[in-house]
């Protein structure tokens, strides 16, 4: 169950752009879709994904695996995801370091975890079970968080152990590091520097908005300079890594997202030169 190495540049596939990706060969190396949107029995969504897959490598990015759930990961959920994985043969399968479900209640939000030894044991067990059920290694994404619990370690220490113990990779969301660092007062660069390069298999870039006293991970605007700076900071020690722009709201014309992706390519090329 080793992780594939892939260093391309991609976008999140969203409805307003379906026809452009189907009718033209758009200059992206991969597309990422929200897994749950396609974990349906049949009909147009599954057909569309098959058509898209014929033209582009696909990454499956989920929001409901709930690897932080104290009650374990859902078997029915994993079985459905496995069926999609088997059909699509994705580059990556990912979800978040969070929980969504407890005692028959599903919040449909990425809820924060305490970074405790107990939570670490639960997450590693759940990630291992998910990987067994899916027959492949997954990526776990660092979430944006708006509250912090007392814990036994930092988020990056927690993630390092999850990766080391389960063999999973990290989907590094640079915007989420920035948002959480602002919200909880830690150093975003220290967070990035602490993660071993070999764990980072994919990168998300996105924008955020400002709440009363917190930053909110809204994915509704371009990647801000602060996030580009962190991306440029982390890249030189990584080598080629799959990178994509994530936009979920106020979705602009495709050419605007491709222009943002061009910025990512330029930064990555510059980082490669620096590393060389």
């Amino acid at each position, binding site marked *: 169950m080793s992780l594939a190495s892939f260093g391309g540049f991609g976008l999140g596939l969203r409805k307003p752009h379906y026809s452009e990706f189907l009718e033209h060969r758009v200059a992206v190396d991969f597309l990422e879709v929200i897994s749950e949107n396609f974990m349906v029995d049949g009909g147009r969504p599954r057909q569309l994904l098959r058509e898209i897959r014929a033209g582009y490598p696909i990454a499956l990015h989920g929001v409901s695996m709930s690897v932080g759930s*104290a009650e374990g990961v859902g078997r029915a959920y994993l079985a459905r995801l496995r069926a999609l994985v088997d059909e699509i043969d994705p580059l990556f399968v990912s979800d978040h370091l969070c929980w969504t479900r407890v005692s028959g209640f599903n919040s449909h939000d990425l809820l924060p975890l305490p970074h405790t030894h107990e939570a670490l044991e639960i997450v590693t067990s759940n990630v291992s079970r998910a990987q067994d059920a899916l027959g492949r290694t997954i990526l776990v994404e660092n979430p944006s968080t708006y509250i912090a619990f007392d814990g036994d370690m930092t988020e990056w220490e927690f993630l390092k152990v999850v990766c080391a113990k389960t063999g999973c990779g990290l989907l590094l969301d640079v915007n989420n590091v920035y948002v959480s660092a602002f919200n909880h007062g830690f150093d975003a660069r220290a967070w990035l520097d602490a993660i071993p390069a070999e764990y980072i298999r994919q990168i998300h870039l996105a924008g955020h908005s400002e709440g009363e006293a917190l930053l909110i991970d809204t994915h509704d605007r371009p990647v801000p300079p602060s996030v580009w700076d962190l991306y440029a900071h982390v890249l030189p020690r990584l080598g080629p890594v799959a990178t994509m722009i994530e936009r979920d709201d106020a979705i602009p014309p495709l050419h605007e997202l491709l222009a943002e992706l061009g910025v990512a390519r330029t930064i990555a090329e510059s980082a490669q030169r620096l590393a060389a």
Partner: protein
Amino acid sequence: MTLLTLQRQFGAWLRDGDATAAPQGMRVYQNNYRAALTACLEDGFARTCAWIGGDAFEQAIIHHVRRVLPSSWTLDAYLRDFPESLALLYPDDPEVAELALLELALAEAFVAPDAEPLSCAEAQQLDWDATVLRFSPTMDLLPVTTNACAIWSALASGCMPPSVERLDLAQTVLVWRRDQVSHFRLLDAREERAIRLAKSGLSFACLCDRLVGSEGEAEGIALAGQWLGRWLTDRLLARATGELECAP
């Protein structure tokens, strides 16, 4: 505190917690939770919202969110109990819940399992003495007591919807997917009964016998042929399999 206890308490606060005294971070999570449920209901029941109006729909969402906990990994499942919430809120306006049931059935047909449709050419090759019809897994039958279908159609096409009418007799709406698009039409009572019988496993030959018995030979055979032709054209039939004895 164990993680399980923390998660139970957090979940309870998301559902019922008082946001006024809570830290902003907790309010962000509660807002996200409510916004996700609201968006899914607004997307799933756009025609129903247009019919009762935005303010009334907002109240219906609040009522539903209090009444029904989201329990599935998919928000699609959260749509399923909304028509019942509307029926409780609008006991004297049954068209509201029926409109919502129709929207729900159309959405569910859209993502129902795929099945290879039975083509006219394939149908000609079947042994009709033994064939049991297999209907599309996208098919659903809904009871209606009002002109909710006409209201839906008017709203969907941007026309002024008709006034509510109660039907003298309850009717059945057939909902299914054809060529990746959901469709519906009202059935007359005889066709509805024929579909239910065929769906329950009665062979087509036995169905014809029953129709001849109830409608007379000429009318019975004509109806069976007419319905079969329409079911084939509508792609309502999947490839037929098996043989069954005539039910008594």
